[in-house]
């Protein structure tokens, strides 16, 4: 018994429904999220105006007070603040997902014949685009105030790729939190409480050498530090990590890739199962 035998012919003829591939469904959802950004440019304030503002504030307010071996503070700052921007993708993805769950949009998507993972993939890609805009704005601001990429095109591109890879890894954390929490406000509160220590207890804004030894250990093993150190070395912003720094900072590129894989391996299953659980009821 097929569906066509069941329904008496409606006046309108049923169209050909060709259930979309994961790629097409995700692309459609990305399109929708980008229309949101176009309609509400204020959604981009965090990665445009604020990016410029933070670069300038740190460079000129703290810049004079923080001494960095072997380089100017602006050179030291840019890689760190760009990594921080990528880490905040997790918060963006979490807030977007919770909002869609809350408003029933996810239910609407789930009632359609699409791969369910398209909801997450679409959300993740648009958040990465969002954060990448922030990184681009920071790079331009940096170039204007004297930051440079000194090691050639290939290394420069590799650093940006590492940033994206790390962004992709932390997004799973965002999906996990977004699936567990009920309101956008709760997500916002939680994510900012986690993200600020995560991005400050690191080598992002100040050298860890000056921290108390227990804090320095945490900072140097923080995945954020490995990625920051990798970008600094690939862009030629300052010296390699000091000889007594922890192992990850001695091998920052390798560790950036390793941390990204580890974070994905830990948070992706948690995220997917939390999203599934949320979607079963």
């Amino acid at each position: 018994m097929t569906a066509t035998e069941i329904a008496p012919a409606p006046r309108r003829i049923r169209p050909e429904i060709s259930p979309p591939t994961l790629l097409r469904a995700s692309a459609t959802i990305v399109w929708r999220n980008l229309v949101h950004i176009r309609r509400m440019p204020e959604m981009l304030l965090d990665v445009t105006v604020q990016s410029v503002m933070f670069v300038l504030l740190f460079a000129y307010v703290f810049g004079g007070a923080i001494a960095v071996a072997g380089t100017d503070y602006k050179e030291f700052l840019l890689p760190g603040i760009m990594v921080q921007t990528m880490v905040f993708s997790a918060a963006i993805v979490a807030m977007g997902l919770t909002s869609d769950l809350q408003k029933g949009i996810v239910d609407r998507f789930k009632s359609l014949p699409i791969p369910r993972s398209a909801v997450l993939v679409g959300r993740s890609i648009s958040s990465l685009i969002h954060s990448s805009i922030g990184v681009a704005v920071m790079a331009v601001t940096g170039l204007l105030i004297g930051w440079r990429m000194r090691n050639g095109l290939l290394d420069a591109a590799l650093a940006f790729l590492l940033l994206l890879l790390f962004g992709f890894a932390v997004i799973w954390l965002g999906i996990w939190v977004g699936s567990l929490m009920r309101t956008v406000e709760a997500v916002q509160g939680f994510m900012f409480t986690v993200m600020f220590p995560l991005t400050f207890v690191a080598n992002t804004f100040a050298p860890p050498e000056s921290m108390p030894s227990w804090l320095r250990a945490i900072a140097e093993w923080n995945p954020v530090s490995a990625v920051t150190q990798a970008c600094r070395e690939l862009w030629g912003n300052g010296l390699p990590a000091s000889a007594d720094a922890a192992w990850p900072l001695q091998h920052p590129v390798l560790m950036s890739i390793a941390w990204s894989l580890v974070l994905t391996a830990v948070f992706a299953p948690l995220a997917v199962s939390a999203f599934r659980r949320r979607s079963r009821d």
Partner: protein
Amino acid sequence: MTVAPAVEAVELAKHFGANRAVDGVSFVVPSGTVLGLLGPNGAGKTTLVRMLTTLSVPTSGTGRVAGFDIREQPNDVRRSMGLTGQAATVDEILTGRENLKLIGGLYGLSRKYVRETTEYLFDRFDLTAAADRAAKTYSGGMRRRLDLAVSLLAAPPILFLDEPTTGLDPHSRSGLWEVLRDLVREGTTLVLTTQYLEEADHLADEIVVVDKGRVIAAGTPTQLKDRAGQASVVVTLTSAADLDDAAELMRSQSPEVHVEPGSRRLTAKADGLGDMTRIAAVFESSGIAIDDLGLARPSLDDVFLHLTGHRAEVLPGADPTTQGVPQ
């Protein structure tokens, strides 16, 4: 040839911990008919719809939509039905037109089809003027109509509507009823949930009354009304002066006659149309002038009270005298 039903629930159950939101519900919806799931808030109606539309996985039991099993063939189910959820789930930031483009893309429909169908649906639902405005600027009624247009984009043979008119003003509500009746005329099968008796009475061929996760009654609106008690013949006289004569006349036909003192109205218990025509004939030959004579069945509200022990919701803005509101 036996025709498979459009929608079928087979001992469907959903438990959230100790809470049995739906506790073994079965029903069958023949193709091209309208089923009304009627029940108070928290009766389990939404959970039922969520299970049948594959949004929620049943704890036990199963269901079939267009012949496809909701557990085994969820993607075939999703291809065969449309869903209009309780909160109008349109994207508020997109325009009306973009909302249809979004869903068209997710169905994998051709751009040409989406464009043409959008024109057709917007024209039909009176949304053409607002097509390029963000949906957040729409009124409640427009939002529902947009939600419905989105659900109808792929012309599904089966449509689920979860409380489609909750929160609408009476004008928008009757507009939506009109649209739904058109769909039924075209052959669409509807499953709708409602807390409103009037809505179920207006739209549904068959009503399933749900309370506390269980089916407590099922049947056509007329069958359900018959269950609540006897019908009666109501006579309105032209002049109150004839009240005593009329009462005597009616007592000769019915054992139980009720006279409303100071009014022109008499009521007599009756078994049905036969009693009514008999009483009409007696008045005809007696020469007592009457304004009106009719058969009154108990309202669905009486049914609801009878079955659940509590009154159903009253449509906001409805005339309370036609709703049997407790005095």
